[in-house]
């Protein structure tokens, strides 16, 4: 009994010191991380906006892929939308931000967060990765499997099919969602 109590106290001491040290570290790093995340999101929104005026964010509840939308306008007319998207990749949830014309045509997309395998699925965070989807969603369907891609694009996603599928399905869902919104406000 005494021995077990002693063991418990030793473990408690180690855990308490560790927790205190981590709490101190977190208090220093958390604001820096939050600032990075905010800046990354703002940069991503500006990058996908195609030069249009960015409106205010409207949260979307209960959709499997779409988390929020933001109007893109020109001379007071809504010409497109930025859509916040989420998908399920190989390493867990990934989040994207994508801009569409009101027709559902994808203009730009960027991966915001992911836990994909470095060197394979994580390549989806590269700017060049999303070019294969640009201009699709209205007249041309968004490529959701590798057979719809050119040989070069298909090779670029080889070894990371689950990530490609997650990104493609999210972008397709965003396009379908935008088509339901229309362009006149």
């Amino acid at each position, binding site marked *: 009994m005494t021995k077990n109590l002693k063991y418990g106290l030793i473990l408690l001491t180690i855990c308490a010191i560790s927790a205190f040290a981590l709490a101190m*570290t977190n208090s220093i790093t958390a604001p820096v*991380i939050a600032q990075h995340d905010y800046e990354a999101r703002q940069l991503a929104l500006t990058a996908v906006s195609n030069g249009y005026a960015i409106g205010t964010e409207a949260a979307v509840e209960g959709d499997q892929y779409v988390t929020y939308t933001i109007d893109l306008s020109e001379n007071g007319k809504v010409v497109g939308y930025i859509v916040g998207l989420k998908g399920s990749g190989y390493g*867990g949830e990934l989040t994207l931000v994508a801009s569409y014309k009101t027709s559902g045509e994808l203009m730009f997309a960027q991966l915001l967060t992911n836990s994909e*395998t*470095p060197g394979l699925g994580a390549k989806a965070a590269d700017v060049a990765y999303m070019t294969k989807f640009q201009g699709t969603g209205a007249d041309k369907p968004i490529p959701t499997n590798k057979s719809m891609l050119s040989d070069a694009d298909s090779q670029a996603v080889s070894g990371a099919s689950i990530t490609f599928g997650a990104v493609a399905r999210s972008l397709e869902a965003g396009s379908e969602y935008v088509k339901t919104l229309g362009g006149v406000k």
Partner: protein
Amino acid sequence: MSKMKELSKGLFKDNPIFVLMLGLCPVLGVSTQVSNAIGMSAGVMFVLLFSNMIISALRKFIPASIHIPAYIVVIASLVSFIQMVMHAFVPAVYASLGVYLPLIVVNCIILGRAEAFASKNTVVDSILDAIGMSVGFALGLTLLATIRELFGSGTITLFPMGSFSGVINIPWFYDNPIRVFSLAPGALLIMGLLKAFFDWNSSRKKDR
């Protein structure tokens, strides 16, 4: 064993990757790019150094029957610490390491050295062991990543600095990549060849 041998054994004789075969999961996973290998090596180096140091200092305080949970708490805390610091101050490296950074907690090299060495030796010897082992890990991982990236993509990816994008395109290899080297079979193939080389080198030394 002399201090010098303690330090150098991890480089070749007891190299953690090619001789002890420890921590192979993250090694095979992150060795697709040189920058990933360098980032992972830095994380392992920090955690191994401090875990060896702390566990060696506490070896008389931690009873044998609870040593595993105690070591895991120490190692997990160090990994959480480096995760928060990397996320805040080197977000690009943090993003590129992805899931492999938290997996350092269960990296066999860390727990293996804590159990086999730090728990039985002085703080100074444990520090030397950690430096030798982590440098051996870094050299092995970087070598594997260099070969895989060179043949698989024709590039060497380092860290962007100023006008330097961080990616060096290697002539000929860049135009003629052998994609399998970037994929899992390529990792196992190169790993096997390097393991064979280390075994051959070690048996050659024994025969002398």
